[in-house]
């Protein structure tokens, strides 16, 4: 490949953010290149960086791209959006010299380099003075560390002599049997040691195991997090937020935020259609042929009209030629006719093992056909009522089950697998059940939620958003940010957006017991809100929750909790669009404390951390709707009608209330706000949302404010609201039957209240 070709390939590799960087001024780099060892992990999605580190990096506004360290490494000049490189336990290679040379170029280009782990445990019979070792020594020195050519295999004589509580002992204290380590020390003036370990009280044996250097950072292998597979315990030793903030110097970067809109926490909900046709066991409907989907419609969807929900049936569950019935179709039509319901698709045949179908070969599925009801070879197959399709019976255990945890590669096999049928076919089938104004807008991945690139691409070609996967939990059973997923997963240049929370299948041990378990979602929702908001509220479940009272009550409990919170309810497709906006957002620094935000799609919040004493300088900003201080961060709401927003900040001394301003601005709203126009004595905006539209605006002065509320369709309502000395204009817009756009104009003159 010639050089030009090579460069072009890297640009493609860098996707949306890099493409954006091809025009105009230099954007603030947001990409972290994560090098993983393709010989150890089958795909980047299984790497430690994806599982553990990408979420904190996303929170810091950074996009992670993956590259197999065994492949030729991209030249640094081909990565204009590169902020730094993260190598996590991927350097245990036979010949590290090419990597070391490349890393030198990266550092020389002024990019940050973070290494977790080293070049592997020293062979007890190995020498320490080969060319390889020499190059490794040089590498560490370039990063700001000095090697002592010593591997400490047994640490019983090693004790921690210094630990910086801001950076280590985050979720778990470094204690007990310390992992073996390579003895490196930070070079004088080159960095800061956050964890120092000493053997037998001898300072000459000191090793720095968590280090922030001028050029990046280093964490010894095993000192980033604790892992006990037997108990499913993962806990951070390292504070990843603080460590990455400092090693990647992210304070200069406004963070595109996917958790918040109009100052409130985003709420969205979606249902996978699994169990649609299961008869409910709930009294008094049991034994009366009432479908679980019917119960969910009646007891949940209709009972919470203020909370939008995306319903995604499995087409095969509805199609009478497969496993559907007129009744299942009828229930679907009734559900989709509800105004708060958005239409999604949860596949046609419900693949469990997506990779099985990446290169679809019908013959590959033949051995499984006997396990399906109505198999496509007409053999009759098994007469069973397919529920979730993953419960194995004794006879079903085989190699495939051992490998994947599934008995069959998908739930239904009425026809040989076809990607077209799975995506477009399912969407077409469901579209036919929708009222005229609706279309399927979201594709919800099934099974292992691990689609291959062509599948994601097929959904994009239909203009669909896609979601699922991630399985975030942060509760007493999984008490660690390590179980909180990143925003999504890039695979073969395609972007899959993860659901922001796990579903009831996980909480009920794959729908096998503790059917009340989904209630524990509330703990995750609380823990991902405080002390930092890292996820929206996502209530994600299946139709089989309508089968049992315990599960139905659990869903209700979660929705009741969501209702009790200051949320902004959005459709699932809206959240997915926001998450996609995170990846495309381009940020340029215009001046000190002034940024230009572009290419952000549906993402309308940028966050500034550690900003208690900062406020928006509205006079020098553009396309900014409002601001809200929360938990030490400043959430700035942007106007979706202004493609290029400019955010300028100023000092703000009083941290007790939102700052006064001669220019009216939004503090919080449960409906989205856009098209804000500010006049001399008035301002107006468009708004739309679910439930009541509760909003708080900061206005220039106390007095009487006149509101003209024009509904889409004509009629206008007039109101007068008095504002006291807090200068907060609070009002509530009534529930709309269907979420329609409302125009609000607010006039004000300085009048005595």
């Amino acid at each position, binding site marked *: 490949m010639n050089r030009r070709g090579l460069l072009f390939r890297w640009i493609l590799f860098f996707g949306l953010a890099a493409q954006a960087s091809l025009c105009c001024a230099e954007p603030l780099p947001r990409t972290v290149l994560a090098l993983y060892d393709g010989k150890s992990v089958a795909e980047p999605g299984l790497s430690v960086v994806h599982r553990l580190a990408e979420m904190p990096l996303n929170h810091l506004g950074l996009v992670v791209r993956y590259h197999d360290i065994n492949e030729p490494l991209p030249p640094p000049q081909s990565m204009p959006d590169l902020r730094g490189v993260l190598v996590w336990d991927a350097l245990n290679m036979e010949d590290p010299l090419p990597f070391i040379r490349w890393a030198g170029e990266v550092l020389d280009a002024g990019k940050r380099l973070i290494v977790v782990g080293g070049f592997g445990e020293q062979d*007890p019979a190995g020498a320490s003075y080969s060319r390889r070792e020499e190059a490794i020594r040089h590498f560490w020195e370039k990063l700001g560390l000095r090697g002592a050519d010593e591997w400490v295999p*047994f640490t019983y004589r090693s004790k921690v002599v210094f630990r910086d509580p801001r950076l280590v002992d985050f979720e778990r204290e470094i204690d007990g*049997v310390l992992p073996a380590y390579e003895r490196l020390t930070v070079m004088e003036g080159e960095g800061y040691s956050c964890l120092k370990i000493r053997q037998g009280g001898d300072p000459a044996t000191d090793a720095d195991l968590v280090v922030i250097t001028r050029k990046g950072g280093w964490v010894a292998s095993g000192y980033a997090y604790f892992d006990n597979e037997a*108990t499913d315990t993962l806990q951070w030793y390292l504070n990843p937020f603080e460590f990455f903030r400092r090693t990647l110097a992210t304070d200069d970067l406004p963070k595109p935020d996917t958790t918040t809109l109009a100052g409130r926490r985003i709420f969205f909900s979606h249902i996978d259609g699994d169990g649609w046709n299961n008869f409910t066991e709930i009294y008094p409907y049991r034994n009366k042929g009432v479908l679980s989907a019917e119960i969910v419609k009646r007891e949940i969807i209709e009972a919470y009209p203020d909370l939008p929900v995306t319903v995604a049936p499995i087409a095969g569950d509805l199609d009478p030629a497969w496993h559907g019935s007129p009744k299942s179709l009828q229930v679907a039509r009734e559900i989709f006719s509800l105004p708060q319901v958005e239409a999604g698709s949860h596949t046609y045949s419900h693949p469990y093992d997506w990779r099985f179908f990446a290169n679809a070969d019908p013959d590959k599925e033949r051995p499984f056909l006997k396990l399906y009801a109505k198999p496509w070879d007409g053999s009759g197959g098994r007469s069973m009522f397919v529920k979730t399709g993953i419960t194995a019976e004794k006879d079903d255990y085989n190699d495939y089950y051992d490998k994947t945890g599934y008995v069959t590669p998908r739930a239904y096999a009425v026809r040989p697998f076809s990607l077209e049928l799975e995506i477009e076919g399912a969407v077409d089938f469901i579209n036919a059940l929708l009222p005229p104004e609706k279309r399927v807008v979201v594709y919800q991945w099934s099974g292992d939620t691990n689609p291959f690139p062509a599948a994601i691409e097929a959904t994009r070609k239909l203009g669909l958003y896609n979601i699922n996967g991630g399985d975030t939990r942060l509760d007493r*059973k999984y008490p660690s940010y390590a179980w909180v997923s990143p925003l999504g997963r890039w695979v073969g240049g395609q972007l899959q957006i993860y659901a922001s929370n796990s579903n009831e299948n996980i909480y009920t041990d794959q729908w096998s*017991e503790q059917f*009340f378990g989904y209630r524990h979602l509330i703990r995750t929702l609380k823990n991902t809100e405080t002390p930092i908001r890292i996820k929206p509220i996502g209530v994600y479940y299946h139709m089989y929750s309508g089968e049992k009272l315990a599960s139905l009550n*659990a869903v209700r409990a979660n929705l009741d909790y969501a209702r009790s919170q200051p949320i902004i309810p959005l459709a699932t497709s809206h959240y997915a669009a926001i998450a996609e906006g995170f990846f495309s957002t381009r940020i340029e620094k215009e001046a000190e404390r002034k940024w230009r935000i572009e290419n952000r799609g549906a993402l309308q919040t940028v966050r500034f951390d550690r900003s208690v004493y900062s406020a928006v300088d509205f006079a020098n900003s553009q396309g900014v709707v409002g601001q809200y201080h929360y938990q030490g961060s400043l959430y700035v709401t942007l106007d979706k009608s202004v493609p290029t927003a400019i955010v300028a900040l100023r000092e703000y001394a009083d941290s007790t209330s939102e700052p006064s301003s001669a220019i009216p601005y939004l503090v919080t709203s449960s409906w989205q706000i856009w098209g804000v126009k500010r006049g001399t004595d008035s301002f107006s905006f468009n708004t739309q949302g679910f439930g009541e539209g509760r909003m708080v605006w900061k206005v220039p002065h106390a007095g009487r404010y006149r509101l003209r509320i024009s509904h889409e369709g004509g009629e206008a309502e007039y109101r007068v609201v008095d504002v006291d000395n807090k200068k907060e204009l609070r009002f509530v817009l009534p529930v709309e039957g269907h979420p329609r756009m409302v125009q609000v104009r607010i006039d004000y003159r300085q009048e005595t209240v």
Partner: protein
Amino acid sequence: MRSAHAIVVLVVVLGLVGGYLVYPRPPELALMHYKNQQYTAARAEYENLLAKGDVSANVVLPLSDLYLIYGEMGKAVELMEGFVEKNPDNLEARLRLSKYYQQTQRPHDYLGSLEKRAEAQPSEEALRHLSQLYNAEGRYRQQIEVLKRIVEDYEAKPSDYLDLAYLLAAEGEMVEAADILRRMARKYPTAFGPRAREFLVSLFLDLGQYEDALTYLQGYGERGGRWTAYYEQALAGAGRYAELFAFWDRQLARSDLSSERKREISYRYEETLRKLGREEKRLAFLRQQLQRSDLDDQLRREFGERYEVALRDNHRWQTLLSYLRDQIERPELTPEEREAFTYRYESLLRKENRKEELFAFWRQQLARSDLGKKERKGIVYRYEAELEKAGRKKELLALLRQRLRDPGLNEKEKRELAYRALELGDKLVAERIFMNLAANESAQSPDVSQLLYIWGPRPEPFGVQWVEERARQAKGKERLAWLERLLDIGATEQVLKMGQQDLVALGYSGEPVEFQMDILQREEDYPRLRLILTRAIEESQDAAQLRRYIRRADQVGFTDLALVASRRLLEIDPDDPDMLRRLGLLAYQEERWDDAYELLGRYLKHSEGDYEANFFYAELLTRKQKTLLAIPYYRRVVQILEREPKLDMRKAVVRAQSLYRVGEHDRALLAFRELLGAHPENRELRADFATVLLEIGEIDQAGEVLAAGGAI
């Protein structure tokens, strides 16, 4: 009828009794609702039973499940806890409570329930589960206790032993950790892999149990890396030095071992010998290493250094001297290496006060043809210093002469030698060197200067001839420079002679007589100069020539000759302004008023003149009572002087007087006052000022001025 009644009554009674008997009682009713998933009704019935005091399993177990269905996790747990408390032996209840704790995410309670279960009914599975939970909770002490129980009471796995050993060691219980590992090795010899072995060895070494360590190191010592280090440490710790040295000998004999590794071994080998005080063996070892054929330069160097240290440690000075001497002779040495050896050899000789050997060594070294320049220089420097210190001047000079024979000497070095010879008082050698150096150099070169310095102000004829010869060979300015040199050494006659012979060759443009005058003037031979100058003035008819004579006469202070020449010049050119001024001022000085009046008048007729000529001429006019005619000249004096930025005192007085003469009394008085202010001690000035004041009638002021000066 009665019987019929009785039958009816009986039937009713039986019906009532039967109805009572078949009608479901509350527990059955509750269970019926529960089974039928009529949870609300079932819950109400169970709660009612509970309220009535029924805390049997039939009530408590289903009711707790119902609470979970309604999400009332706290109530479910509380109910089960109460039940288990009252029924501690009910295993099913315990299991259920434990599960509740797990399902309601109460990890600490779950752990507590497991602990109780494990206590009541210990099992390997429960203990192992407990161990993992303790690990996850970071309760390592408890994990140790559980693992100990597993190891003691059950069929522990290899991983149990390892986990326990790691935990014990981390807690500082190294003896126990080693014991556990040893038990593991016995029980699971195949699972006792290299890692466990290394761990055990490491513990033994830290515990000082070297023999035990060696037991587990059998067959590992030669594996290299840490294994070998452990083996060596263990042998040394156990005092098995014979084996240790034998091991090292074997290692060093290996051809496949890297030189780095060999270096390491040899270091430790020698260090061990040193620590053991086995110095003879130490020296022998190092000698042996130095003789190895496979040594690379680096290693040879290092061994050599260590051998030297060893020799010094043992005060083997003679051996060390021999060794160093041998090293110096090695042809493959770089100059730097040789120098280093030489330095150490010399230092040692010096330390041992073996001066003659040292001198002999130096002589021998200097005789070597392959000696580098820098090395040679260093040796010479040190040799000389040492000779000088010893006061051995004769040898020093001999060394110097010997050095002079060196064909490779450059000029700078020759010069240094010459200076050194001078320092040592050998002028002859220095003279020879400088003559040699100056042979082709110009008259002003430092070497010529140095040579003339050596010869002194009046050199031997040989020297004069040498310079004269150089002057003769030179041309133009260079010859003049050489003539200067001749004059410097008092050879005036030779110079005059050479000058008269060939002025053109000298590049001299003037008359021969003036060359003569130049030489005589330079040599301050004033009588001869006066003679020649007098004659020349008398004979001269050339104005330019006469001007030169006047200048020369002025330079040497022949004022009379200058006057004669001036008059002569004026005869040739009566309007020569310089001569008119010069003679006019002279006449004024000599109070020949008429001459002065006439000459200065002619001078000022064609020229503005300077302030002196104008002032004196004005004064002459004033003397002749031509005061009105004098005024323009006084004015010109003022004008000329006021053009100057700063006036000295003489000029300032002349200006003040001129101002007074032209009638500008105020300015004149001001000027006088300022002058007097600056020079209060100047009596003449004070007198002049007082005179002026008197002349304008300011008698009081005149008196004050004089009084202030103490004149009254």
